């Protein structure tokens, strides 16, 4: 536990840890202010499809709608912010020259790597919770509350979630988002144990995420057949909590696949760190 808090202290002593929080606060608040100023245009754009056939009354652009909109927009960018810190967790020790000092101390390598990994997950969780707080609180203050219209842009399909159900669904959605980001953090963490500088793991993680997303979205049969084997396919399973009925089976499957990825990646990192040569 002491090791864990030490890692947390080290993590939050670095200025780069706060880049993610700062970026999220800036982008989310800016987005919310812009959405407030051009509310009509945004509603028209988002609801273009249903507005063809329905007259829509009521507070569609409420805090929950804005939160779902921002989550949809940012879930490709958050991995970069996570990689920024997770990619530095182990390799940072090599860069700063403290790795030998660390590994000759009494705590075993297993305890050190586990503490670092848990600290990485702590940061990941904190970042996603921060995103949730920054989205929801100013969102509700600026736009008010109401029922949530979950509409997949460009597709005919509307899910109407009553206001009373939204907080618990959002809680589950954010927990799912944390779970998804854990996989990204695990990739960055593994790469961080393999190299001795931080840039490689950060760029490497983003390269993996971007390449997988691109492959998964190419409109060719070959790439479509690969989609089930890409972890990025399951990363958006938080959206399923805004579906009706909630597809629990699909959620459990996605969560399991992502969990296995995270565990597998940590296991490899664990093995790599145990065998790490610090003498050369």
């Amino acid at each position, binding site marked *: 536990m002491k090791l864990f808090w030490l890692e947390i202290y080290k993590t939050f002593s670095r200025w780069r840890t706060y880049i993610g929080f700062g970026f999220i606060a800036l982008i989310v608040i800016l987005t919310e202010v812009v959405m407030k100023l051009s509310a009509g245009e945004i509603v028209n754009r988002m609801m273009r499809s249903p507005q063809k*056939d329905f*007259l829509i009354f*009521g507070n569609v652009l409420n805090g929950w709608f804005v939160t779902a909109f921002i989550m949809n927009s940012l879930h490709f960018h958050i991995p970069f912010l996570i990689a920024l810190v997770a990619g530095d967790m182990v390799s940072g020790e090599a860069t700063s020259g403290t790795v030998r000092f660390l590994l000759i101390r009494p705590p075993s390598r297993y305890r050190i790597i586990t503490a670092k990994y848990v600290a990485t997950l702590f940061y990941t969780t904190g970042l996603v919770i921060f995103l949730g707080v920054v989205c929801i609180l100013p969102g509700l203050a600026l736009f008010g509350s109401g029922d949530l219209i979950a509409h997949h*842009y460009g597709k005919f399909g509307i899910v109407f979630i009553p206001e009373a159900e939204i907080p618990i669904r959002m809680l589950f959605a954010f927990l799912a988002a944390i779970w998804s980001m854990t996989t990204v953090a695990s990739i960055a963490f593994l790469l961080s144990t393999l190299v001795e500088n931080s840039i490689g793991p950060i760029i490497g993680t983003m390269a993996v995420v971007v390449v997988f997303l691109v492959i998964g979205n190419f409109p060719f049969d070959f790439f479509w057949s690969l989609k089930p084997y890409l972890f990025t396919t399951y990363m958006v399973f938080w959206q399923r909590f805004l579906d009706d009925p909630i597809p629990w089976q699909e959620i459990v499957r996605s969560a399991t696949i992502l969990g296995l990825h995270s565990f597998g990646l940590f296991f490899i990192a664990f093995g790599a760190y145990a065998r790490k040569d610090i003498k050369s």
Partner: protein
Amino acid sequence: MKKILLWLLWIPFLLSPGLIQAQEDPARYLDALQKKYSGLKDYTVDVNVHFDIEGFKAPDMQAKLYCKPPDKMKIESKRIFFLPKEGGTFNPSMFRREDFDVKFLDRLTYEGGNAVKLKLTPKKKKRNGQDFILTVDTDRNLIREMNVSSFEGKEVKALMKYSQFSDFDLPTRIELHLDVPFYESMEIRDFGQSAQPARRVTGRVEITYSNYRVNVGLSDEIFDETTPSKWRKGSSGGR
């Protein structure tokens, strides 16, 4: 010769129903509708909308509707409320003779009563390319069915049930059958969408009306900024 003359005398009688039908002004049925509701100054009603549309997952929605013909409408709802654009509301001023080219299609029996089928083509709203086929109960001067079709391929059929409130027959239930094309946006998945045919979305919407209050003297102020443009003169489309 006598036989030929006899047959010639019969010809006008044989042709007369068709001639009468061709000569009668079909717009008079619209006039009768207008006349029937000329005393309807305003009304308020509670509306419940039930959706049964593929891909549209929503519970029943409730609202209070305020209407002041010819062009004022307000929806009051604590929650988000969706109302179908076509056939979702009853506005007796919707079909005025001066706004449509009216064509007589058929005379028929509807639920044991006399009815006519009319085709209405908007004179001004050509932009929408919408045609209306109305089945009008000529005994009670009521629109019983309305079929709306647009050049985009949208098909909406509305079946209406009425009850009498303060001497006016007002709808208690409108059942809409929707069959509309939907083009998936190219931004969402790939870049070959333009070649793809539209997917059709079908479903049913059931609108029930209750607690009518007729001619209660609604003031114009309560409708400020809330009337959908569809109801305003010389324009079309949604809110």
